[in-house]
């Protein structure tokens, strides 16, 4: 069952989730996406180009950030538009994990089109890593 627009109000938190990213996650994403830029798995290369360390692929952060919304919708086909701005890199330690926290709120309701804009707040250690992260979803 998908959520009904009549039951939503702007500002409602519709989904919330924490994802633990490890180096394994980055290697898995590199293989799945075909993005083998070594700054996403080699510390020496990351440091040689002036980065503080290995970073998550921005597209991995974008890819996971929408999942709480998909789970709330119950159907990935309801995502009709999804955009983000990459504002801050996500550093991933060689050992252990880093938590990426996602809070999804209703940003705007479009009753005529039976659609909503869901705004994502995506943070690591309290700092925002994605800007203008917006998902337009169909609720018909």
């Amino acid at each position, binding site marked *: 069952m998908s959520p009904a627009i009549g039951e939503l109000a702007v500002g409602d938190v519709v989904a919330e989730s924490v994802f633990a990213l490890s180096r394994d996650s980055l290697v898995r994403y590199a293989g799945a996406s075909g993005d083998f830029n070594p700054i996403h798995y080699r510390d020496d290369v990351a440091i040689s180009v002036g980065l503080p360390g290995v970073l998550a692929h*921005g597209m*991995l952060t974008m890819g996971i950030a929408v999942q709480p919304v998909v789970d709330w919708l119950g159907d*990935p086909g309801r995502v009709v538009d999804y955009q983000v701005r990459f504002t801050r890199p996500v550093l991933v330690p060689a050992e252990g994990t880093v938590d990426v926290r996602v809070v999804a709120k209703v940003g705007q309701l479009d009753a005529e089109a039976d659609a909503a804009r869901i705004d994502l707040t995506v943070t690591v250690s309290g700092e925002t890593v994605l800007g203008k992260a917006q998902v337009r979803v169909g609720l018909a």
Partner: protein
Amino acid sequence: MFPSVAPYLVGREKVREFARAVFAANPVHSDPSAARAAGYADVVAPATFPVVIQEQALEQLLADPQSGIDFSRVVHGDQRFSYSRPIVAGDELTATLSVASVKSLGGHSMVTAESAIVDASGEHVVTAISTLVVRGEE
């Protein structure tokens, strides 16, 4: 406008692999019977899957000596996907890249590239829009 990239055939196992990599847990991404029960012909690709196809299209731009883009100075600025319909396994997709805008901002340039992705019958599926920031020489 660049020539279209050779068609990309969306494979079921590729969709599963990508879904696992982006922590997409909904069974319609991995289980064909769950996908069919939800009204899809086969497993559904996660929302950011078109990046795989966009990458091939963007390679044309980055490899084009006329673009003058130094790949080592490129940072991904923003990304957007605008869908007409979801991608499912079995789709044969063709991307055509165009450069929508080029802006200069304090020594950096911002290149916005659009990959329009259509299916085998030529119907629009999704447009992937990427803004690349090319850092200026220090």
